[in-house]
């Protein structure tokens, strides 16, 4: 039961929230359900920590890897929920802004992601990931402006086509399993596939075909270049808390799926094929996004390309494999979700004060919005991978594993791309923060940040700092648990 409750609560919550017409009541109910969900996730994580693997029925299973990603999901969801309570005030009246629908869709989105993490077999995993696309497409188009509708449509079409390829990949895995002698109804179950993987070397070509389709499919959801085109539009047009959720958790969820499939292929036919593929996609994303960040004009698009860059780094980490590579990749996914959430929170008040997110029209933010600028600076330093924050540690780990396996060219490419991305971020943030704010300083009537917003932002900041200075022993054991599952 510890798995079913955290799964079903968001589904029920979604329909429950729909029932409350009055916005204040809807927000309160949503908060209640949110807290309950976080507690359930915490309890499930606690039991999982002690039990190692939890299996309920044929379709729900949770192991070390799920534990790590559930913690990531729970933490980010709690922070985003806390922030969104205050955020809905920012939405100008004209927009489609009923909190009821907002929270319903958010809980639906949460339900699909928890389903993805807890699903035992690859088919269920695929269905859950497809469902995340559907749930988040409406959220992307929430504002119903021209840009939001266009972004939503592109997001829906491109991701659905991508997921269709992933379906073909899953089917090919199923075929390879069946050919490898696994009984038909268990042929999609991840655990059985892992144990049977060494036996499947006969279907080498089919497994390579399966991984190619899965990589392109789930790669679209992760936003790896050249399948990334939907990501900047979707993250730029979605409301701030939603782009935070998309950037921080949805990309990790797709990466989780790819991790599962990469584990099977590398066990069956050895890692070099799948890892070369991941390295090439990761390197391409890292380089292309670093260059694209230089010429961005909109703040949220800049942050979206930065997400592509960091997902490229995570893909590099997974592609390099080994104790250091995987440790760096997982830690980097976690750190990136925290830092990106922090940055997306600032876009809300920036849009409200300056009326736009076009960076060449934002001047003197340091004086107009001192607290938001502080958050922007902390987030910017973290995303640029500078020392006091966690991303420096994980990038260092990935670089160490790259050099240990003497991938010199790849490592130097990564260092160059990180420097270019740092230059782009520095150039844009400096232009926004310095100088005199245009027009009348609207600081007088700016609504004071709510306690929730301050709490959300400080949780992210403190976690980033802790992970930068000292990765707690508990967290390291969770990471090693997750790596053990994949090894």
């Amino acid at each position: 039961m510890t798995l079913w409750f955290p799964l079903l609560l968001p589904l029920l919550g979604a329909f429950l929230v729909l029932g409350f017409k009055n916005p204040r009541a809807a927000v309160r109910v949503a908060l209640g359900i949110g807290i309950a969900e976080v507690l359930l996730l915490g309890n499930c994580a606690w039991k999982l920590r002690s039990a190692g693997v939890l299996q309920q029925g044929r379709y729900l299973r949770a192991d070390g890897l799920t534990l790590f990603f559930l913690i990531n999901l729970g933490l980010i969801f709690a922070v985003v929920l806390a922030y969104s309570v205050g955020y809905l005030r920012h939405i100008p009246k004209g927009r489609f802004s009923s909190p009821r629908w907002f929270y319903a869709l958010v809980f639906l989105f949460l339900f699909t992601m928890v389903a993805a993490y807890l699903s035992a077999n690859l088919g269920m995993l695929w269905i859950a990931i497809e469902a995340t696309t559907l749930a988040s497409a409406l959220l992307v188009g929430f504002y119903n402006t021209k840009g939001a509708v266009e972004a939503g449509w592109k997001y829906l079409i491109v991701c659905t086509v991508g997921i269709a390829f992933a379906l073909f990949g899953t089917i090919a895995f199923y075929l390879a399993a069946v050919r490898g002698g696994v009984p038909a109804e268990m042929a999609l179950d991840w655990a059985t596939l892992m144990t049977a993987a060494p036996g499947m070397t006969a279907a080498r070509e089919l497994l390579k075909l399966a991984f190619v389709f899965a990589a392109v499919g789930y790669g679209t959801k992760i936003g790896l270049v050249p399948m990334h085109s939907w990501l900047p539009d979707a993250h730029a047009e979605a409301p701030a808390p939603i782009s935070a959720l998309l950037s921080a958790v949805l990309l990790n969820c797709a990466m989780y799926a790819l991790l599962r499939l990469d584990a099977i292929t590398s066990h069956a036919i050895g890692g070099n094929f799948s890892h070369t593929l991941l390295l090439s996609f990761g390197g391409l994303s890292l380089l292309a996004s670093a260059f694209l960040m230089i010429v961005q004009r909109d703040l949220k698009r800049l942050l979206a390309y930065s997400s592509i860059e960091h997902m490229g780094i995570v893909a590099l980490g997974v592609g390099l494999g080994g104790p250091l590579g995987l440790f760096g990749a997982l830690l980097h996914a976690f750190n990136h979700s925290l830092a990106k959430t922090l940055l997306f929170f600032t876009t809300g008040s920036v849009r409200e004060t300056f009326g736009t997110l076009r960076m060449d029209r934002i001047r003197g933010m340091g004086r107009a919005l001192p607290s938001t600028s502080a958050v922007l600076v902390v987030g910017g330093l973290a995303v640029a991978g500078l020392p006091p924050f966690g991303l420096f540690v994980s990038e260092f780990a990935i670089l160490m594993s790259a050099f240990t396996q003497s991938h010199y060219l790849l490592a130097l490419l990564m260092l160059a791309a990180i420097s270019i991305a740092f230059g782009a971020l520095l150039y844009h943030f400096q232009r926004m923060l310095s100088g005199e704010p245009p027009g009348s300083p609207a600081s007088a009537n700016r609504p004071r940040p709510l306690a929730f917003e301050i709490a959300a932002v400080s949780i992210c900041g403190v976690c980033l700092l802790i992970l930068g200075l000292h990765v707690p022993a508990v967290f390291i054991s969770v990471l090693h648990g997750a790596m053990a599952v994949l090894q």
Partner: protein
Amino acid sequence: MGLVEFAAAKTLASSAVFLFITVLLIAAATRTSTCIVLFAAQCAVITMQVVAMAYLHRSGEALVVAAMVLLVKVLAIPYALLRIRNRLNVPADISASTTAAQSVYIAAALILLAFAVVQPYARAFALDSEMLAVATALVLTGAFLMVSRKKALMQVIGLLVLENGIFLAALTTTFGMPLVIEMGIFFDLLMCVLLMGVFVFRIRDTFEHVDVSRLRRLRG
């Protein structure tokens, strides 16, 4: 080998040809409604195939799958699409970027390409190369439709054709996945089409047209 077995074997053999015809027709179609009808025909053929396979392999599960295909793909989705098209009251032509003749040639070329690509795999895994070729052809044509057609609804149909191709591939290679997974996939497909319908209406409300290639606001 009774009459029924003979009929089932024949339907399996001839269904590939019917599917090729529907592929070429969809490529040549100029109006959205004909495309929807052709898609429904395609699904009908696939249903026939599933029934035949169910009968040959005596598996009750396959029958349930056939029923679902009939319900979802032959009836529900085409009906929904037609209703959407009628309420859209926008010009019915599909304003493709390639003329009808060019589309047919491309579709034919894709079919030949599908055969070429499939041969090694079919031999390697002792699969029915013809059916696999059809599946790949469907996938490639679906992709081509999405890339070349400008109307939003046509992109949805392109996606559905692509989905059909993948479903067919699954069918021929593995004789059907576990039932729960199949049902999940169909449910997802249905939700996806509904959602696309919602978005098509939203595009028409905000842009006064449903020409996807003119959605160019978000760049760089």
